[in-house]
């Protein structure tokens, strides 16, 4: 019998708090390799937080995340990340090429210089996103869609097995949206696993083969055709879990112990 390979992503009872306020409660999630997962939910549902917690950028209060059977800090080079476009200083003096090269940094290591191989690989990634002609442009001089393509080219340059993308479709033109969808499906077909935060319900059904419905709790996870139902969407978008949110933050802010001492 074959030894089961570790799953790309395994989340167990994950609780994350932001400034003493819990934003994710007890998430359990296992993702099979080669899935293209859309993370959908209302504003403030904790979609970005989930991604950041998976990478260990945000510390969890409870529970654990395993990436390919390891802690996410150990599996760094196997995880690629596309942050939200607004999280970046677009006036920073870097060119599109510089940004894509940043995707290689995880492989290059500290203090070492960027090699010719890295450069030519970065050019290939730019080419794949049709952005090679803009390689030497300052990143702030590109349009929103072009900036997003550069970000995706950087993700390609990371050569990861698990990709976490935060709203890659936000504020891009139709052509770029199509290019991104093609890229996502392409990567999935190569056996990579992708988790994509998405806010547009009308396209979610066509873009992803799995969906994670999130609203502070994981409402449902599964194949799109099983999960994309009226009832579950109603449950996800039907108002916040106000009581859970309130009690949760009260518990975290409580100075006195809330459970029996062990």
């Amino acid at each position, binding site marked *: 019998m074959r030894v089961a390979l570790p799953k790309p992503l395994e989340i167990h009872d994950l609780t994350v708090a932001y400034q003493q306020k819990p934003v994710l409660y007890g998430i359990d999630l296992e993702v099979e390799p080669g899935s293209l997962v859309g993370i959908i939910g209302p504003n403030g549902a904790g979609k970005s937080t989930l991604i*950041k917690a998976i*990478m260990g*950028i945000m510390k969890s209060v409870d529970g654990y995340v395993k990436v390919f059977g390891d802690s996410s*800090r150990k599996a*760094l*080079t196997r*995880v690629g*990340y596309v*942050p939200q476009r607004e*999280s*970046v*200083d677009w006036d*920073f*003096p*870097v*060119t599109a090429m*510089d*940004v894509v*090269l*940043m995707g290689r*940094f*995880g492989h*290059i290591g*500290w*203090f070492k210089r*960027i090699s010719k191989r890295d450069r030519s690989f970065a050019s290939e990634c730019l080419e794949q996103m049709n952005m090679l002609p803009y390689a030497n442009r*300052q990143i702030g001089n590109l349009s929103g869609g072009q900036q997003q393509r550069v970000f995706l080219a*950087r993700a390609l340059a*990371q050569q990861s097995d698990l990709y*976490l993308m935060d709203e890659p479709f936000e504020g891009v033109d139709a052509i770029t949206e199509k290019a991104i969808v093609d890229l996502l499906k392409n990567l999935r077909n190569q056996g990579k696993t992708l988790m994509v935060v998405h806010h547009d319900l009308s396209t979610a059904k066509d873009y992803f083969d799995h969906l994670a419905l999130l609203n502070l709790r994981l409402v449902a996870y599964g194949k799109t055709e099983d999960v994309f139902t009226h009832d579950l969407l109603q449950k996800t978008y039907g108002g916040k879990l106000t009581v859970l949110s309130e009690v949760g933050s009260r518990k975290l802010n409580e100075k006195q112990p809330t459970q029996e001492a062990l």
Partner: protein
Amino acid sequence: MFLPIWKKLKYMLLILVLSKEASVLKAAQISSESDKDWINQAIRFWTFTDPSIQIIALGAILIGINCGLMGGYVVSRRLSMFGDTLSHAVLPGIAVGFMFSQSKNEAVLMIGATLSGFLGVGIISLLKRHTKMKEDSAMGLVLSGFYALGICLITYLQQSPNGGTSGLESYLFGSLVGLSDRDLVPLCFCLSLIIICFILLNKELLLSGFDPSFARSVGLPVDILQFCIWILMAFCIVSSLQVIGVVLVSALLIIPAATAGLLTYRMSQILVYSGILGALSGIVGCFLSFMGERLPAGPVIVLCSTLLFLAVLFFSPARGILPSWFRTRRRGQRIRFENTLKACYQVLESRSFSSQSFPQTALAQRRGKSDAEIEKEIGVLIREGYATRQEFPTEQKSELPSETMVSLTPSGWEIASRMIRNHRLWELYLTKEASYAPDHVHDDAEKIEHIIGEKTVRQIERILDNPQRDPHGKPIPSQDDIDRGWLSPPLVADK
């Protein structure tokens, strides 16, 4: 004697290393011969023969390079305000250091300054974390609070019995007087630290500055890198204090780098330019301060870098204000004479191309301008070799009123017919391919005709399958007509 500057630098560094016991050369000596005329003084400065001048010049250059290099990251990471706060927050530390050592012991003063600076930074982050205060207010508070405390302490020390000769006021506005060879050691140390850090951590600093969350995702300790930048900044500020002064040292962190930002958009180039600009303002400011006797070094050096900034802002070829103003003006002139030439064509066309010349008054009518204005426009065309002018009849005796006739030269004809061709092809393209109404296309074509390239025009011609007439039924001159210098017979016959 006239060694290149870099050799001088090397020589100076060698001295620094070798001469542990070197006598403390006080730059105060240099102003003793103030009655000599300024040319001699200038020669004395730029030949760098005097050891004390070598020291102040080298000091100013080192400070310029340090602050310039550091500034590249300060400005691109938006730490300008932070640098200002840090530099003001060091002042109480200097005063306290003086109280401790009861003398102007540089090492103690620097330690005091650094500690006080970091105390200020610590207070900022505490305020940010535990109160509702925003970062800019927290910085403003720390900056002014620490600065006020520092001034009070220094004033108090100067009035105390042994404070009269303390010279602490030079830490406010800076001074080259009193710079000794020992003072160059921290500057050299700071420069090598900055260079080593920037070379080793080049890509890490770039990534963590541009995209911190991605940097964390690939495992970079973003906060530690940020802290490294702070430490380097603190070193840079503290080692420059004596020459530049607390008040203006942050200006030297900002201005050269901001100037470099006008010239390029690549981090590595910004660092190089900014270092050079810093060194340049250092040495020039040092020279002016040396010549001007009582001018404080700090403000003069900062003024120099401000002037460099203004020079780049106005004159830089790519994005300078003056060059782009000239470009705009030239474009305006070109459009004007292209329109005049186009009107010439239209006049010729309205006269069915029966003769190659036409009266100037007809052109004035066509352009809707006064005779004087047209006289000027024709004058420009003649000067540029696009047209010629003749009086008719040529004999002065004739009783008929004389008339000025204009005809186009071959190059004038080429531009005129090209403009018409561009205009009419674009109108046709808009109506046929972009389904504009024929009465909506003229204004757009008026603009496009001047900027559309020949390549695009040919492309349009191909798309429209070599059309003969524009949407208003007027003939479109072909490339052939332009080359031949006159319309081909069918078009003329057409009219």
